C-alpha cells in the first residue's frame, strides 16, 4: 500500500491502491483485458495488509466468492471487463437481493461480445443498471482520471458499506490504462457497515429512514438465513405472499432512491446559463471538457456537465439543464447513456456526438459544438 504522496501511476493500479486504502480484505478475480492490472497488483499487495486474494475459475465464481466473503465481515471486491461483467450479472443481482456490500469494477472495453479488448467503450452503462433480472437499483460511479480511479474506488467501498449494496465502479479502458499524476492523502475517510445493536434481530428489514438494516457476520450465533429468494425481515423465505415481495423489493429500490442526496455527485461549469451544455462522462469527458474550454475562449456560451455518479442518474439536474439550453451528449458508445439523457432532455434540444474505438481530438468535438450552436 502506497504511503501518502504524489505518484505517476496507471489508472488500474490507482484503483487497486484505492481498494487497499479503503480497507479491502478480500479480492477474487479472473484475468481479462483491460482490467487485469487491478488483480495483478492486488495479488502482491493485498496479503501484505492481511487481505485474501484468490484467482477464481471464472467470473461467476469471482462474484459468488466476494459475496460469501462479505458475510464474514470483509470488505470485498472484484474487477473485470464486459464479457466478465456479463457473467457476473447473476450474482450481482444476488448481492442486491441479499443486501451484501461489495465493489465490482468494470473497466469497460469496446463491445458487444468480445469486441475490441484493448479499446475503450462505454456501452455497458445500461447493463450496469439493468443487467440482472428483476426490479432493482444500484450505485455506479464513473471516473475520468487516474486520481478518480483512486478516489472513486474508496467511495465505492464506502457507499457499499453505508447502504449494504453492490457498487459498480464503471471505468473504461481509457482511464484504466491512462498514466498520470495521482495524489494519495493520509486521511482517507472509510466507512464500515452498521452492525446489529444488542437485541436487534431483523437483518433484512428496518423502519429506519435510510432503509438500511444492520448486518451481522457468519459465525456469531445468529442462525442467519441469507437467501436470494424473496424473504421476510428475519430472512425466512417467502415465495408467495404479496406483502413479502412488495415490502422487500420496494425497500431495496427506495434504499437508493430516497438517499439520492447523499449518493449523487456531478461536476458542472456554466451549466446554468449557457446556450449549449456538453454532457459527458468517463475518459470521453476529458476531450469534451477541453472542447468546452476552447469554445468559451473563442467566445461561445457553452457549459459542461459530467455525472460522477452515473447511477442513480442525476435526472432532475439533467432535466433542468435540458429545459434551458441545448444539450450535446458526447460519449464513447452509441447506446451507453443515451436513453437516460433522452428521457430527461427534450428531443429538439438534444444533440449527439458519439464515437467508437478511441477518444476523438478536442478539435473534433469543438467543431461539433460549433455546428450545434
Amino acid at each position, binding site marked *: 500500500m502506497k504511503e501518502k504522496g504524489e505518484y505517476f501511476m496507471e489508472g488500474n493500479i490507482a484503483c487497486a491502491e484505492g481498494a487497499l486504502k479503503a480497507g479491502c*480484505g*478480500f479480492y*477474487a478475480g479472473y484475468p481479462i483485458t483491460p482490467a487485469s492490472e487491478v488483480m495483478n497488483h492486488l495479488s502482491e499487495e*493485498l*496479503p*501484505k*495488509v*492481511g*487481505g*485474501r*486474494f*484468490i484467482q*477464481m*475459475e*471464472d467470473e*461467476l*465464481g*469471482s462474484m*459468488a*466468492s*466476494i*459475496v*460469501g*466473503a*462479505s*458475510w*464474514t*465481515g*470483509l470488505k*470485498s471486491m472484484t474487477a473485470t471487463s464486459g464479457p466478465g461483467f456479463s457473467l457476473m450479472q*447473476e*450474482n450481482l443481482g*444476488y448481492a442486491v437481493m441479499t443486501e451484501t456490500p461489495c465493489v465490482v469494477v468494470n473497466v469497460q472495453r469496446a463491445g458487444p461480445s468480445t469486441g475490441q479488448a484493448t479499446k475503450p467503450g462505454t456501452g455497458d452503462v445500461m447493463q450496469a443498471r439493468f443487467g440482472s433480472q428483476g426490479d432493482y437499483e444500484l450505485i455506479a460511479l464513473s471516473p475520468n482520471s487516474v486520481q478518480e480511479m483512486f478516489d472513486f474506488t474508496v467511495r465505492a467501498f464506502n457507499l457499499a458499506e453505508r447502504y449494504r449494496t453492490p457498487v459498480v465502479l464503471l471505468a473504461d479502458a481509457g482511464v484504466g490504462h491512462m498514466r498520470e499524476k495521482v495524489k494519495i492523502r493520509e486521511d482517507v475517510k472509510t466507512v464500515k457497515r452498521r452492525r446489529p445493536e444488542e437485541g436487534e434481530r431483523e437483518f433484512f428489514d428496518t423502519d429506519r429512514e435510510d432503509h438500511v438494516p444492520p448486518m451481522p*457476520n*457468519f*459465525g*456469531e*450465533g*445468529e*442462525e*442467519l*438465513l*441469507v*437467501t*436470494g*429468494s424473496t424473504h421476510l425481515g428475519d*430472512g*425466512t*423465505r417467502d415465495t408467495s405472499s404479496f406483502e413479502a415481495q412488495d415490502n422487500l423489493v420496494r425497500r431495496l429500490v427506495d434504499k437508493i432512491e430516497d438517499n439520492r442526496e447523499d449518493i449523487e455527485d456531478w461536476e458542472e461549469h456554466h451549466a446554468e446559463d449557457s446556450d449549449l451544455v456538453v454532457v459527458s462522462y468517463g475518459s470521453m469527458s476529458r476531450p469534451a471538457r477541453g472542447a468546452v474550454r476552447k469554445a468559451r475562449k473563442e467566445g461561445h456560451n457553452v457549459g459542461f456537465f459530467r455525472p460522477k455518479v452515473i447511477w442513480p442518474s442525476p435526472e432532475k439536474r439533467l432535466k433542468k439543464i435540458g429545459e434551458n439550453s441545448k444539450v450535446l451528449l458526447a460519449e464513447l458508445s452509441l447506446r451507453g447513456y443515451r436513453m437516460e439523457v433522452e428521457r430527461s432532455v427534450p428531443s429538439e434540444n438534444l444533440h449527439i456526438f458519439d464515437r467508437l474505438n478511441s477518444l476523438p481530438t478536442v478539435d473534433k468535438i469543438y467543431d461539433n459544438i460549433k455546428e450545434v450552436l
Partner: protein
Amino acid sequence: MLKAKDIKEKYVRSHPSPFCPGCGGGMVLNSLSRAVEKSKLSKDEIVAVSGIGCAAWIPSPHWRVDTLHTTHGRAIAFATGVKLGNQDLEVMVVSGDGDCAGIGGNHLLHGARNNVDMNVFMINNGLYAMTGGQVAPTTEHDEETLTTPYGNPSSSFEAAEVVKAAGAGHVARWTTYHMNELIEEVEKAIETDGFSFIEILTQCPTRTGKKKNMSGLEMLEWYKENTSKDQDTEKIYVGTLSKVDKPELTEQIYRQIKEAGGDPK
C-alpha cells in the same frame, strides 16, 4: 447422544416441510445434524451453503445454523469466499446433482482441485426434481425422464469419480439407506482439512418413483439390493473412494499472508 426429539429441537427450524412424502431430504438433514452432534463442532461455527433445487432447501431454512442460500450451481464458489474469509468456520455445501454436477460442474472441479476445506454433499436423485423431473447429468443412459421421453440419449456422469480425479482430499458415496454409515462419513468429512465430497444417492418418490412405479420405501430397498461395500462387484460401490493428504487452500493462503507480513485475522 440426544434423542430424536432433542436433535430436532436443537438442529431443525420449525417450518412446514416442503418435501414430498417419502423424500430423502429429511433423512439427509437428520444425518447431518446427528454427525454434527457427535463431532466436537458447535453449530455456531457452521455455515451451510446451498444453491437451487430441492436439495438446496434441506439446509435453508430448515437447518438451525448460519445458511447462505445462493444461485443455481454457484454454492461451492460462494462457500470458497466464506471459508477464505474466516478459516474458523465449518463450511457445508448441500447441493443436488443438477446443481452440483450440471450447472455448477466447473466450480465443483475447481473446488476439488483447490482442495479448499469444505464438506460438499451431493444429493443425487438422478434428475431435476423441483422443475418436474427433467434429465440430469446423473441420469442413466436410456432412462425415461420428462425431457427424455424416448430414453436418455446421453450417459450418466460419475461425479464422485470425477471429483476424485480432480484432486479432492476425501471422496465417498452412500445412500439414504445407509444412514449410520453416512453419519460416520460426515464425521470423517468434518475432521478432514480439505475438500470432502460425499455423494448421497437419495430417493425421489415423486419424480423417479412415478416413472418407475416405486414408493420411497421400495427405492430404499433398491439401494439396499443394488449397492455393495465391496468395490469388486457389479453393484454400485458405497464407501470411501479416496482419502489423500494434499495442501489445503485456506491454510496455504493464510500462510502466504503471514509470510508477506499481513495478519489474516
